[in-house]
């Protein structure tokens, strides 16, 4: 090949290219297609990943040069009661939010799949919230939770003579109130994906089961749920990651005291945001992101493990 290239030095440039075998030409094309993306992924994804680990071992406030401190940030994290509170909040969002939203989404999809009359309209009703901007609708929900005479829910409660609820101003009710908003925002996506999964199950399976005399419950347990497993696993992981990374709703619904009252709604991403961009304690914030990364990695690996053991 190189020989061919040197021999044809006198020939016009196109001739050099023409002498490459087809295979070689295609390999060159492939790397030409990949050149810019390789730079992008290397520079914008891989290098920052390693940098994040490195920063987590340093003490750095941007103004002074970074100082290597080993595992000090992690040690500080383990002994920081604020972190454990945030850790507990984050898992509360996950452990209640993900199952509740999945069960509701499945129930809606399961029944909506059999409805023909106004099917598209009802589906659109469930799907619409997914298309809204979380940062915008969080404020609408904030209004809904206001005390009388502003908020919608307390207004309704008052009409029925039920005592007022503090919602976002209460250290125990604020987190569930925000969680409802997050579930509401993500439900439509899950319904649509469940519907697609249900559609992909061949009708013949159901017909065979009916001929065998299986009841509705048995069909659900023995056919629908097992065949729907890939869809369900995908949604479990997708919504788990979503709840572990919750931020938009919390930030906007508690913007006068982000993560409040008294840090009772603060998730880990909000803590990262405040540590990095309010306190500019970059090393400590990076250590928190490494912890988040580890948690998300475990969740993803669990997914692979569950899918393999099919």
């Amino acid at each position, binding site marked *: 090949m190189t020989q061919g290239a040197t021999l044809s030095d006198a020939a016009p440039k196109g001739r050099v290219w023409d002498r490459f075998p087809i295979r070689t030409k295609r390999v060159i094309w492939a790397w030409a297609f990949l050149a810019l993306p390789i730079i992008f992924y290397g520079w*914008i994804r891989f290098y920052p990943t390693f940098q994040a680990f490195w920063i987590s071992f340093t003490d750095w406030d941007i103004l002074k040069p970074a100082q290597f401190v080993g595992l000090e940030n992690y040690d500080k994290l383990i002994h920081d009661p604020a972190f454990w509170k945030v850790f507990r909040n984050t898992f509360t969002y996950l452990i209640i939010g993900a199952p509740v939203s999945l069960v509701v989404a499945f129930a809606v999809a399961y029944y909506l799949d059999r409805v*023909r009359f106004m099917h598209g309209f009802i589906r659109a009703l469930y799907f619409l919230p997914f298309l809204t901007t979380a940062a915008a609708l969080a404020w609408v929900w904030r209004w809904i939770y206001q005390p009388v005479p502003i908020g919608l829910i307390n207004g309704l409660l008052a009409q029925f003579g039920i005592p007022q609820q503090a919602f976002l101003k209460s250290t125990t009710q604020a987190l569930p109130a925000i969680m409802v908003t997050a579930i509401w925002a993500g439900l439509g996506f899950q319904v649509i994906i469940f519907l697609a999964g249900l*559609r992909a199950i061949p009708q013949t399976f159901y017909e065979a089961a009916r001929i065998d005399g299986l009841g509705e419950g048995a069909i659900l347990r023995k056919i629908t749920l097992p065949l729907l497993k890939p869809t369900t696993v995908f949604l479990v992981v997708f919504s788990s990651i979503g709840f572990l990374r919750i931020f938009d709703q919390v930030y906007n619904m508690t913007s006068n005291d982000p993560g409040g009252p008294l840090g009772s709604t603060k998730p880990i991403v909000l803590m990262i945001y405040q540590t990095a961009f309010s306190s500019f304690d970059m090393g400590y914030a990076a250590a928190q992101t490494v912890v988040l990364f580890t948690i998300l990695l475990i969740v993803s690996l669990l997914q692979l493990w569950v899918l393999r053991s099919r």
Partner: protein
Amino acid sequence: MTALAPDAARPPLKFGRIRPGQILIWTVLLLGGLLMITPILYMFSTSLKTASQVYDLRLIPAAPSFDNYVKVLSDGNFMRWFLNSSFIAITVTLSNLFFDSMVGYTLAKFEFRGRYFIFLAILSTLMIPTEMLVIPWYLMSAQLHWLDSYWGIMFPGMMTAFGTFLMKQFFETVPDDFLEAARIDGLNEFQIWWKVAMPLVAPALSALAIFTFLGNWTAFFWPLIVTTSRELYTLPVGLSSFSDAQDTRWEMIMTGAALATIPTLVVFLVLQRFIVRGVMLAGLKG
């Protein structure tokens, strides 16, 4: 793939077979759906009320008026944020359509050493949460003077592993014979990809476009970090600061939220089937 069509024919219910249970299910589903859009309805309703009517919780305003909209839009910043978000979402979407499909095509249809390694490397970036990268991105942007610029908001999303993976899956279904025929016709590899392969994966491209656009239109975390001047805010970030500044003027907050929601609602109403199918496609393949 035909099974994914949202309105794929299922045997229509025969009217003789409608049971009371089905009517109950239908009613519950409809009420649940109406409950789902209640916040959206009240958002629009309150945006049409005056400050003194906000305390009146009726859904239909007594005297609807668009004054709030005029006030919010004449604020000056709002139109700017709207245009910022449009520009950013469209640019990033076009970039993803181009690069993700180019990489997906290369990984699906070319044979070369290192192909599998590149694929795994790109796929592995899915494991890295944005939150972990924002600190390095921020420092990088500070050094390169990208803070507070359109490019600074856009650069992290110009290519995504999700889009690459989605497009690779779809290009694998394109028969090699098509590409070979084009090769014999004398098209070069770029032309084969652009003129022959791309039109064959149009449904996947539209799915990717919808996801990328929606994701960038609603993006909040990174734009909040990278922008500091009000003129460069995206709509969600601008809205957040606007609402915070309004204190308790809920009719203004609702109007801002409504203005951010209207464009996506209009697009959805026009392209409903398209969008639902796209989400199904991307969700199942991705």
